[in-house]
């Protein structure tokens, strides 16, 4: 009689459908709090457009970010003029 009674009682307790483990573990992320913290600290919306201020920033925006071939031309022209003016200063002007 008593065993039947206790069994009846246990059957009356509803099945456990929620558990802390079902939130903290499972498929997908390891730790939900870590994921939430990560997303909370992320900046939201679109990244603010960087306004180039210095010369190098402007140069980067204009030529290097656009994969232009101009920087190479600038590089070569710069060294050509430097090299030629040095050559002129040290040698070429003395030849005439």
């Amino acid at each position, binding site marked *: 009689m008593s065993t039947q009674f206790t069994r009846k009682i246990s059957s009356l307790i509803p099945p456990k459908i929620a558990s802390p483990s079902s939130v903290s573990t499972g498929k997908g992320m390891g730790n939900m709090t870590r994921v939430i913290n990560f997303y909370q600290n992320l900046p939201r919306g679109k990244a603010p457009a960087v306004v180039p201020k210095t010369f190098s920033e402007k140069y980067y925006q204009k030529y290097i970010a656009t994969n232009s071939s101009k920087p190479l031309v600038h*590089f070569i022209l710069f*060294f050509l003029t430097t*090299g030629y003016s*040095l050559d002129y200063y*040290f040698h070429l002007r003395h*030849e005439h």
Partner: protein
Amino acid sequence: MLFMNSPLEQFEINNFVNNLSFLKFTTFSLYCMLVLGVYYMFNMYVFKSGKLISTNYNMFIEALYSTMLNMVKSQMGNKGNKYFPLMYSLFMFMLFSNLISMIPYNFAINAQLMFTISLSMTIWMGLTMLGLIKHKFEYFGLFMPSGTSLPLVPFLVMIEMISNIARSISLGLRLGANMLSGHLLLTILCGLMFDFIMSSSFIIAILGFIPLIMILGIVSLEFAMAAKQAYVFCVLTCSYIKDAIYLH
């Protein structure tokens, strides 16, 4: 008009300030600074751009970086990681100075044997000290190959020691002589071509364009040489460091 300059004139180091003998600012110093500036600029644009996706220019630096990293890793393993900055900056300096010297009228730093050999001697001295600090007296085991019969040991030690010391010169000499000869060759060939073109006869002037293709080939070869010599210098430095760390 058509007087010939010495082809060696391009390797002359000129002093900007003639009056101050204690402060020598020469074309060599200027070009060292320019190379440093180019090196800084390239790397600044790569590392300070704050972009995850690189541009075509950044890819160039990234490719060089990974080349150097692979080289250091394959030569020295994970132990060599701390020598990577040295190898990378050495390689970049060599490469940029070689490439800049390929632009006409520009001064070739690496064609100065004094510079390259003193650089290689500094490196050799540094890694000898490294080996001595790391292995103490055992470092001299480097001079004796394993499995030699006893009577041969003195000779082998002598030979190994000489070859080890010769590295200090050969490393820089290889780079310097290559660059020097390349630039000399180009200047001489161009002088020849120039003399042909400038001659009063029209036919000879046309003939002057015949070496053009050859010179084109040689210039492109020199470009390849500029990159290759920088790489070879670093590979050899790397293998010498490996010797000093691992003792064979």
